[in-house]
């Protein structure tokens, strides 16, 4: 077994153990053995119901959010050749937040309406970033730096819109918007899990297929073309799919920061450079990080919940910094 093979076995094992612990932890603690039994429908009916209907969807949703954000960040950093690239930087978060806040301000409080508005907002922001970058880029081409600039500027614009929208809003709307912007997997249900699972499978699948293109795009525009990549088409597809992947996670759980930025770096620090294993690794590490963060968010200060987006950053950043030291 190669050195890399062990990485995978250890990573997957840790993730599974983490999930079992996360499912077992809550107001009613459940032992790991009972968790596993309950997953197969054995044991007390009440325990089976708690696990299957309440805790498992939440853990699965957290995993999917982490996997989606991790893959999105990995694909964007490679194709844009920039370690700072991540979906939120490219306008996804700002656009989604505008969508959600507008929905809340209009009194559309239903979860589905807010999710849909967030997804639409993210989509509009991302397409806008692409259009702005193409219009500004040399010869009508989207230069990675122009695209990053466009994303950052659109994000700043979105923040301004949110502040204006919230300036005179009633306290309820402000609180709702703030909670949404801090992210939470608390509203998980099997239907939200199913919706996100479909988006992640399709988007993640496309990115895995394009992974070899991303390897080559990471060399630069001209070397990529010299190696046979249709640079403009590949880069645009990777960008749109990554952004939509992140938008789907935002629609499901609000803003969960830093995952898209730090997870790919953690995987790279493990010596993985090719984008097919890198994206798979980012999905695994991202899932583990968000499951751990969600576990911390709901257990550190019961019965209150901490904002998931903040906890991912608090957990992820020190780990990221320690890996950064190792990588350089």
């Amino acid at each position, binding site marked *: 077994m190669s050195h890399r093979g062990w990485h995978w076995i250890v990573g997957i094992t840790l993730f599974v153990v983490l999930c079992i612990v996360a499912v077992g932890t809550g107001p009613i603690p459940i032992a790991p053995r009972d968790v596993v039994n309950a997953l197969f429908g054995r044991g007390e009916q009440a325990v089976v119901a708690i696990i299957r209907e309440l805790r498992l969807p939440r853990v699965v949703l957290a995993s999917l959010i982490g996997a989606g954000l991790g893959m999105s960040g990995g694909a964007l950093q490679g194709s844009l*050749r920039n370690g700072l690239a991540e979906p939120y930087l490219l306008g996804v978060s700002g656009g989604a937040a505008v969508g959600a806040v507008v929905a809340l301000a209009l009194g559309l409080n239903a979860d589905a309406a807010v999710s849909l508005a967030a997804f639409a907002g993210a989509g509009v922001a991302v397409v806008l970033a692409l259009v702005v970058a193409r219009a500004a880029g040399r010869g009508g081409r989207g230069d990675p730096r122009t695209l990053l600039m466009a994303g950052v500027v659109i994000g700043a614009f979105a923040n301004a819109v949110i502040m204006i929208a919230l300036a005179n809003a009633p306290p309820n709307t402000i609180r709702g918007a703030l909670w949404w912007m801090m992210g939470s997997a608390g509203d998980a249900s099997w239907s939200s899990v199913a919706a996100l699972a479909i988006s992640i499978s399709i988007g993640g699948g496309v990115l895995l297929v394009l992974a070899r293109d991303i390897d080559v795009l990471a060399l630069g525009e001209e070397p990529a073309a*010299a190696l046979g990549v249709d640079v403009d088409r590949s880069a645009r597809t990777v960008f749109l799919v990554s952004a939509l992947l992140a938008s789907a996670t935002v629609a499901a759980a609000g803003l969960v920061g830093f995952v898209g930025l730090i997870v790919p770096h953690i995987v790279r620090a493990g010596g993985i450079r090719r984008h097919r294993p890198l994206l798979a690794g980012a999905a695994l590490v991202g899932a583990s990080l968000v499951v751990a963060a969600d576990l911390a968010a709901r257990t550190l200060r019961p019965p209150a919940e901490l904002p998931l987006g903040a906890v991912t950053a608090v957990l992820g950043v020190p780990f990221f910094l320690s890996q950064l030291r190792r990588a350089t």
Partner: protein
Amino acid sequence: MIRFRDVAVRYARASSRALDGVSFDVAVSGVTGVAGPNGSGKSTLVRALIRRQPLESGSIELAGDSIISLSQREIARRVAVAPQREEAAFPTTVREYASLGRYPRLGLWESAGKSDEVAVERALERAGVSDLADRRTDELSGGEWQRVRIARALAQEGRALVLDEPTTFLDLSHEMSLFELLHSLAAEGLAVLVVSHQLNLLARFARDVVILDRGKVAAHGSPDEVMSAPLLESVYGWPLVVSRDPATGSPALVPLRRPSPPPPSSPSES
């Protein structure tokens, strides 16, 4: 192998053409050199070959087929190009970097197999970088880096090799050994096209030299035909003489100092 025919390129919003009626062939089993002042269109030629710059008119053919009729991937299977601009985002190992040369030869679902590994090892060996295979690309010296780029291009296993300024930042011995390598690759049957400012090296190693000047071919022929002082003086706008390499007799160019202004007259006593 590579045929440029009346190639014309105009950049967006530019008043004049970057390339204007450029025609020449790059034959197998030889080195063809392209030189010319800054901005004469050398790199544009390479960008046009990999379709990063559309042609206004004319055509570029690879083994008889116009690049317009070929897929980007098929172009990369026929000709391996190491462009000048390269800004790899994340460092990797030399072996992984060179194995990216296999990209155009792998199908979407196909993973690299034994034949790909063999091709990569052969390319590393041919470029003289086998001993660097496990080093990181951000730890290489300038000379090693140029050789690693050539290894990646060789891993493509095309019949033509195109290098844009492969000796930038290289010292004398690295420069010479790189050109010796290109010469022996050509002797093994590759069609080699080198874009370089090093006219003297092109004169010693190339079979044909093309001099570009403001997008047009100013001269094309054997080094002896092209290395003429009046022609090069007018292309580069600098006084120079052409002498001979003492060992091989190939032409060698020596740019001259401008005649210095007369020294200030010393105060005379009379």
